[in-house]
């Protein structure tokens, strides 16, 4: 009885000790991690993540997954202007207009498409964010100048921009990525600037100033990290649009000049000439683009929710 009583007494003490203590659990939960936790609970996010991961996997292991060499014009001699060999032994989805295995090309295409998406988005984001930081950190006339510059970029049709760049830099895959990146720059710049301006007025920035923290550290250590979440969200969405943009550019003949290298956008746009012969040539890459875009967008959309301060606890 007494033993039991002691145990309970202990429990009361424990409870008393708990009051005024910080909450339990090992290690602090950072915002990123708590956002991640919320993401894991969101079925939409999971769907998006699964799609993205599957395609990343396919891209990474393309050489092992693809049944054939995506460049070999194996069935070319069977191709006729009005006829493209369909599915057959060894060619589960049939061949393309140059007798190459469509499935293998789709699989390898994920590499280039994702590469274009990632590189151009990263590039656009980095430059855009640099401009955004400039405007957001300094404000005043720097802000005005940068924002006017962004306005100027915005009022030039993105297609013209892309074309000029690929003409200036010669037509190669880097020019293509840069061209797409340039069209993303204003988006990132405005987004980051807006969000930094909002953060700049917040109390913790004032607090950092009051503490005598140096200006650079305030901008890069406080304001910037806290302004990033809309940019992250935009990033995932941009990945999707970059792939579509690449398709539009190759439709205009401004895509990757190494056209043998499979890329969904290019595949889709070349397939336009064979729609009456074999629409599958267009349907498959279009499907790939849509699904990947969907994956990134769903992920982005749920990231937005996960990073939304409203849902923070």
């Amino acid at each position: 009885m007494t033993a039991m009583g002691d145990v309970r007494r202990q429990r009361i003490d424990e409870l008393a000790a708990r009051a005024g203590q910080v909450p339990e659990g090992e290690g602090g939960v950072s915002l990123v991690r708590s956002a991640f936790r919320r993401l894991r609970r969101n079925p939409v996010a999971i769907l998006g993540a699964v799609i993205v991961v599957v395609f990343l996997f396919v891209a990474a292991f393309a050489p092992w997954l693809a049944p054939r060499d995506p460049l070999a014009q194996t069935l070319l001699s069977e191709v006729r202007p009005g006829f493209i060999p369909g599915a057959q032994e060894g060619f589960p989805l049939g061949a393309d207009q140059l007798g190459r295995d469509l499935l293998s090309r789709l699989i390898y295409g994920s590499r280039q498409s994702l590469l274009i998406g990632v590189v151009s988005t990263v590039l656009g984001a980095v430059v855009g964010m640099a401009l955004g930081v400039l405007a957001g950190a300094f404000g005043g006339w720097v802000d005005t100048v940068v924002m006017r510059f962004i306005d100027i970029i915005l009022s030039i049709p993105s297609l013209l921009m892309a074309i000029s760049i690929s003409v200036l830099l010669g037509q190669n895959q880097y020019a293509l990525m840069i061209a797409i990146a340039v069209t993303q720059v204003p988006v990132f710049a405005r987004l980051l600037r807006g969000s930094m301006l909002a953060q700049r007025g917040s109390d913790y920035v004032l607090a950092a100033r009051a503490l005598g923290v140096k200006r650079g550290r305030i901008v890069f250590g406080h304001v910037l990290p806290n302004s990033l979440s809309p940019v992250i969200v935009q990033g995932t969405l941009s990945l999707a649009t970059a792939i579509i943009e690449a398709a539009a550019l190759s439709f205009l003949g401004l895509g990757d000049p190494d056209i043998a290298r499979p890329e969904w956008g290019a595949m889709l746009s070349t397939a336009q000439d064979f729609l009456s012969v074999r629409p599958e040539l267009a349907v498959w890459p279009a499907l790939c683009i849509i699904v990947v875009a969907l994956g990134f967008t769903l992920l982005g959309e749920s990231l937005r929710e996960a990073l939304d301060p409203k849902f923070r606890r």
Partner: protein
Amino acid sequence: ASSDRESGGGGEGGGAAQSGGTMVFGATGDPAMLDPAFGSDGETFRVSRQIFEGLLGNELGGTDPVPELAEDWEVSEDGLEYTFNLQQGVQFHDGTQFNAEAVCFNFDRWYNFEGLATSPSASYYYQAVFGGFASTPDTPSIYQSCEATDENTAVIRLTQVTSKFPAALALPAFSIQSPTALQEYDADNLSGAEDALTYPEYALEHPTGTGPFRFESWDRGNGRVTLVRNEEYWGEPALLDELIIRTIPDGNTRRQELQAGSIDGYDFVAPADYQSLQDEGLQVLVRDPFNILYLGFNGGNVPGTSANPALQDPRVRQAIAHAIDRDTIVSSLLPEGAEAAIEFMPPTVDGYAEDVTTYDHDPDRARQLLQEAGAEGTTLRFYYPTEVSRPYLPDPAAMFQVISQNLTDAGFTIEPVALPWNPDYLNAVQSGQADIHLLGWTGDYNDAYNFIGTFFAEASNNQASAEFGAFSAPEIFQALARADQEPDAATRTRLYQEANRLIMDYLPGVPISHSPPALVVAENVSGLEPSPLTAEVFSTVSISE
């Protein structure tokens, strides 16, 4: 001549061609303007060919020049004086009379172009055929004079014999236009600023010829040119009431619009669509091939040019020629009716030689040649155009990929360079930046010089054009020059054959194919005769309900 015209009508089993109706035809682009004298592109000529006629025309469905506004003509012994007997009772659309005066007015007009009109963008064809102007003494002209000896006889004198004459007069650029209208609407007054020519009112609003259709309107916003039947036409009047030419740049759009019935026909059918369109009951009208696609080499042998050193070795050039699988290209990439080319002009042109050196598909031989030359793994900057589809090259990218694969198989390394067709690609290729490149040519009229002369005539200083690496091959240059100035047709043919042999021995590039471009019209359209020169006339066309 008019009998030719009449016989053309019944292409489709002689069904009673109905008169009347409107035909809408899909074109790929807007005409630049409507004065053919200033024209140089196919879309301009597609329209002007319906409105205007020249002294000579083209044989219906063929490439040979036939009398049109001239009933016939005689050439003087020395080949310098042409006497044209003109059709009588011909009226321009503005009601004025067509006569020898009018003919000479036109010739003098061209010869006396001044200022901007003498720029190559304005009068390309005149300069290509006649050389310079009255106002440019530095560049002599082969045109001397035109004289209206009577109402219906025009005598044209040249300063020099040329094989181009008189066949070139069938070019739409040399259409005879109404002197009254030309003067009234200030036709020669090309103005311009900075980077553009401004065409006079005549070229935009008042093109006045003698042809079976009259110009009605040009609605640029909507991309449509409307022509109506010329009721006063001197020959067999057109069957259609109205011919509308509509611009639809995108190929798929053109096809779907035809399928949907919004248009009655269009040009530049994608080879892949020939079959399916036919299956749907549409009429695919395949033209005879009158073009050449080649893979040009930057293989100059003159020091100081930008030529690729490896390509100066004939064995390397031969290796390329042996590497290319022309038969597969023709069967897989080009429409039915395409032929593999063995030289740089189509077989139908006089001067074609059957017995040139040929280079069969033989990868082993290619590799061997390469080895002998010590050039295995040579890197070739392979240029190809984008955003374009030419009659001889329907799908540049596919062509590039297949040839590129062939060359890789033979042991070359390919570095692809893609450029938008105009001006980047043409600029780069013609200034000799490419190691190898894809280019071709559609003939303007039935003349060998129009093909091989354009490519391989001496450009300057005993060198060929930069496109072919400015190679120096005097025997080829001489052969071409001699042939061009030979008035006798038979001799000329022989000389051109010789030139072709020389060219294929030297191998400045690989001729690849002749490809038949096609138009397509709806089921209820009849009477459209495809022309190898893409010079279709619509006066024989009728459309039934």
